[in-house]
């Protein structure tokens, strides 16, 4: 379903009326196209080291502001910030250039995690969090602001490529930690030769993830319930992948899954746990079967499959796992105690598994989508849907492709330094910190 309001306020008369009345004016977001440059224009960068990294992304990097240039991105390296006064330098940098940040512009600040040694340093470092989150709310015309916390001399290149490009269109107000880990450069098809499994891939977000992983070069095994097989076959035939009709909640599912991946594909490099169900009821009215089925499919199945993978050679070293959480699991949602339990549980699960995956040079991360336009959200009442669409900094719903692009970044070889993270793809939704 198209966002009629977004289309209206982006037409000439609609724009004039919305502007006069002070109505929200969601922008048409810049989204990634194959072969598109990382940024459509020049970037103003503070910090020589950071400037070097961004230049490697084939971006037109300037280190001083001439007062006229329209910037596609503003980047600031605050990894050395150690005192309150250092923040003023940051304010000066942005205050001058922000008004000339172009549509779907990018603000990225590099910082460090508080280390627990010096209160002044930690206060300064933590302050960056407040600055970036607030700035993200001030930006207009589809621009986003995100904070990247770099550990030691880890390379932020992969994360910067993602954040600056159209792939991160709906990722806003996020804090991403980059640690040590493999970070080879990204070729044009970063997933070439990889075997990927996507569950719940017959439609919606799962189908979009399968599309993008295949676009980036992976052979995708798409899995879904036997009853969803018709759509699943269409997805597989569209992307040159293969189908696996399987109920992941069945006791024998991990063995079936591992057997299939081992025998047919010699193992697996990428697993995206996307399959999930909702059975919304107020807790007072919640039937045991509604509770049990949601936790079985959304959480227990992932736990059993991940444990089986870790204990098997079917999972290749350097594997990447992405688990779909939800902003409901972060902020809570009325009528979703069961669903939020499963999605919050995924966040706990990802953090707990991360060291085990890291030991095998792998990563495991969670994506928490906010309001994404899918068949599921189309079923909502119109008024509720319209409100839900607007209560985020980008004033619009995300698209399945936005979640898919984030997943594709997290599973790419170059993102080895991103582990145990929860990336929200929510346009900086008002709900869910």
């Amino acid at each position: 379903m198209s966002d009629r309001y977004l289309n209206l306020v982006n037409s000439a008369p609609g724009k004039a009326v919305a502007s006069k009345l002070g109505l929200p004016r969601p922008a048409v977001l810049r989204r990634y196209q194959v072969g598109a440059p990382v940024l459509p224009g020049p970037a103003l960068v503070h910090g020589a080291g950071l400037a070097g990294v961004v230049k490697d992304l084939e971006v037109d990097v300037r280190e001083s502001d001439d007062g006229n240039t329209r910037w596609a991105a503003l980047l600031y390296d605050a990894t050395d910030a150690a005192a309150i006064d250092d923040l003023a330098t940051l304010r000066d940098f942005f205050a001058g250039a922000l008004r000339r940040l172009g549509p779907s512009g990018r603000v990225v600040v590099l910082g460090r995690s508080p280390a627990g040694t010096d209160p002044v340093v930690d206060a300064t470092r933590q302050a960056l969090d407040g600055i970036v989150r607030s700035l993200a709310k001030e930006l207009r015309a589809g621009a986003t602001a995100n904070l990247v916390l770099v550990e030691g001399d880890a390379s932020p290149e992969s994360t910067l490529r993602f954040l600056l490009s159209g792939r991160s269109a709906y990722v806003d107000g996020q804090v991403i930690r980059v640690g040590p880990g493999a970070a080879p450069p990204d070729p044009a098809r970063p997933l070439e030769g990889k075997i990927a499994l996507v569950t719940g891939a017959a439609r919606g977000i799962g189908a979009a993830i399968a599309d993008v992983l295949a676009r980036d070069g992976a052979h995708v095994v798409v899995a879904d319930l036997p009853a969803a097989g018709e759509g699943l076959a269409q997805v597989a035939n569209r992307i040159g992948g293969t189908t696996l009709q399987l109920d992941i909640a069945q006791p024998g599912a991990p063995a079936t899954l591992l057997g299939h991946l081992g025998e047919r594909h010699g193992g697996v490099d990428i697993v995206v746990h996307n399959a999930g169900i909702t059975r919304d009821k107020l807790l007072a009215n919640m039937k045991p079967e509604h509770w049990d089925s949601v936790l079985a499919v959304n959480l227990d199945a992932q736990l059993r499959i991940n444990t089986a993978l870790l204990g098997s050679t079917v999972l290749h070293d350097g594997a990447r796992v992405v688990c779909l959480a939800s902003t409901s699991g972060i902020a809570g949602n009325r009528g979703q105690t069961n669903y939020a339990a499963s999605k919050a549980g995924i966040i706990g699960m990802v953090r707990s598994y991360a060291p085990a995956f890291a030991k095998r040079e792998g990563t495991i991360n969670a994506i928490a989508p906010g309001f994404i336009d899918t068949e599921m959200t189309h079923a909502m009442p119109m008024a509720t849907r319209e409100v839900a669409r607007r209560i985020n900094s980008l004033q619009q719903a995300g698209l399945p492709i936005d979640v898919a692009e984030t997943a594709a970044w997290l599973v790419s070889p170059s993102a080895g330094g991103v582990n145990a993270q929860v990336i929200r793809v929510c346009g900086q939704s008002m709900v869910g910190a």
Partner: protein
Amino acid sequence: MSTRRAAVVGGNRIPFARADGPYAHASNQDMLTVALDGLIARFGLQDERLGEVAAGAVLKHSRDFNLTRESVLGSRLAATTPAYDVQQACGTGLETTLLVANKIALGQIEAGIAGGVDTVSDAPIALNEDLRQVLLDVNRARSVGARVKALGGLRPGQLKPSIPRNAEPRTGLSMGEHAAITALEWGITREAQDELAVVSHRNLAAAYDGGFFSDLVTPFLKLTRDQNLRPDSSLEKLAKLKPVFGDTMTPGNSTPLSDGASTVLLATDEWAAQRSLPVWAHVVDGETAAVDYVHGDRRADGLLMAPVYAVPRLLERNKLSLQDFDFYEIHEAFASTVLSTLAAWEDAAFCRDRLGLAEPLGAIDRSRLNVNGSSLAAGHPFAATGGRIVATLAKLLHEKGSGRGLISICAAGGQGVVAIMEAA
């Protein structure tokens, strides 16, 4: 010339629907194409050029002269994959399997797909035969006068269209009426037929519940299981149905008119291994027989009795006894057909007089018969039944890991197609 065994790699079908049900507006080409696409998706055959695709339909529009080739062109297979149509009534699906398997065995092709499809909902309705003759005469007429004269042959009664009938052209009897004669001759009881039907439903339901069909069936038009399946079928419920053919055959122990399509992927072991695909079973041998149901004996030459003659010839050639099998897949056109077939093999006089055997073939272990259900529960889209049975048996043999299975399918025109498969 040395031969090699054709491997059954897997199969795919759409759930079978009852006539005028969910597939009422789907054509044979729609159903065969989607069944092919499900197979392609399962085994990653997108853009592959296969040796051939052989399939067919019993009820076919004249415009569908190249049904299988058109379905291939509409599928995700390479457009350079050749295809042809086969029609051997209900034996079509197994006959195409044997055709493809034989070409593989002879080294002519490395891999191919066999299949079949049928719709009775989207049946071809032809012009009234008299009207057709008049119109052809008009077309042939050279002058205005001749045309007017030819048009003079038009009559109101010719508006009645010609609808395909489920009847044998040479006897005018429907298949059910023929089967009822055979059932009566062999003394097949109503109770025995109902019992077979209940077991068929129970077995098919259990197979679905156990996930057996997860990699054999792809849903179509929101149908996820065979529509005819009644997991709660019981002898009490079946006993309430009124006979429709003879005194014992009811809608409960006869197959309903159905829509559906099935496909089977066959290849050499090497072709499968190169693609890391499994080999479920090998096609060992096949045999086809026919009976003279028009002039023959009412008891021994029934319309659907041809497999009774085909199986002993196949056993003889392969030096096997009827008891040397772990699975028997006997197509349940009617419960009475299966029971008449088994009765004939146990009948010493029949086996001696008609099959030339000193000893009867004997009884089979009924617990090995149609263990995951058959046509009474699944439904029976004529040409699609063979593919359903071949894929089901191949997977049964694969799960068991050893053993041998016998397939027996009766067909209109007094024909029967039978085959042996072995676990890989």
